[in-house]
């Protein structure tokens, strides 16, 4: 049974390492689903989705770097 728990922990760890980072990604996806419904088929949708995710990655990494140096 212990290895089953370890497997469950490993699988959770596959997706979530930093809770706020994972939360921000999910939140952006939820926001974007709503925005996308308003402007379906827009050419900017793909790049905009990527831009938001890229911004989340940048913010998370820089925040971690700042916290490390405080």
């Amino acid at each position, binding site marked *: 049974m212990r*290895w089953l728990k370890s497997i469950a922990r490993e699988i959770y760890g596959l997706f979530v390492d930093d809770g706020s*980072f994972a939360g921000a990604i999910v939140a952006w996806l939820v926001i974007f689903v709503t925005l996308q419904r308003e402007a379906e088929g827009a050419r900017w949708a793909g790049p905009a989705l990527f831009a938001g995710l890229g911004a989340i990655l940048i913010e998370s990494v820089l925040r971690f*770097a700042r916290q490390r140096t405080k």
Partner: protein
Amino acid sequence: MVLGLGHLEATRMGTTLVAAFLASLVECVEALTVILAVGSVRGWRSALAGGAAALLVLAGTIAALGPLLTRIPLHGLTRIPLPMVQLVVGAMILLFGMRWLRKAILRAAGLIALHDEEASFVRTAEAIREAGASAAHHPKGAHGLDKFAFSAGFNITMLEGTEVVFIVIAFGAGGAGLLLPASLGAVAALLVVAALGFALHRPLARVPENTLKFLVGAVLSAFGTFWVGEGMGIAWQGRDLAILWLAAAYMGIALCLVPLCRAHPVTMEE
């Protein structure tokens, strides 16, 4: 038109195979590092037997549950609409890939410890030697196997193997006929790492894990973004080829962030 569709299908299958191969490669390298460490200290027979037993258990589970997966109506034929599958699977792959990419950036910038195979091998071997002082007095199993080495080989293969199975299922659920290329990618990764382990017969320090994670993180993030977008109904320019620019863009961001993070301490002190 038929040729175009065939080309698109081939691109999708090819990218799925490569992505599943790269993602599985990382997991296989991690498992093999531990098996090599255990084997070199406690004996190859028991460590390899543990790994083989776990592979058999995994294969049995897949053989039992695999046919069920192919019967699940993933393409909106009945209950689950394809966009929903793409959205959920894409989000999972996105979380998975972004997590790896973030960690790879932080490691490359020196903000967290580099998970180096050589160090991992030495640490595991030392832990096993220490444990061996007490385990040496324990009787061996019925087949003369070292219980510690067998258990360590079994556990690590089971853990990493389950992750590989999960990766294959996630990639395979992305579209019709993708389970086969995803499975082939994972099997190829297993064979490559097994051959590497056999050839090197010592730590896999020559495989730069962080470089691999950089690449895999960018590719998985690109796949995740693409599938999430497809699930939302986004019309990607260039269709599946958008995965290429997405991967390049993620890699570009990551490569720019590494020197920025390295420079951060100076900026903060100023």
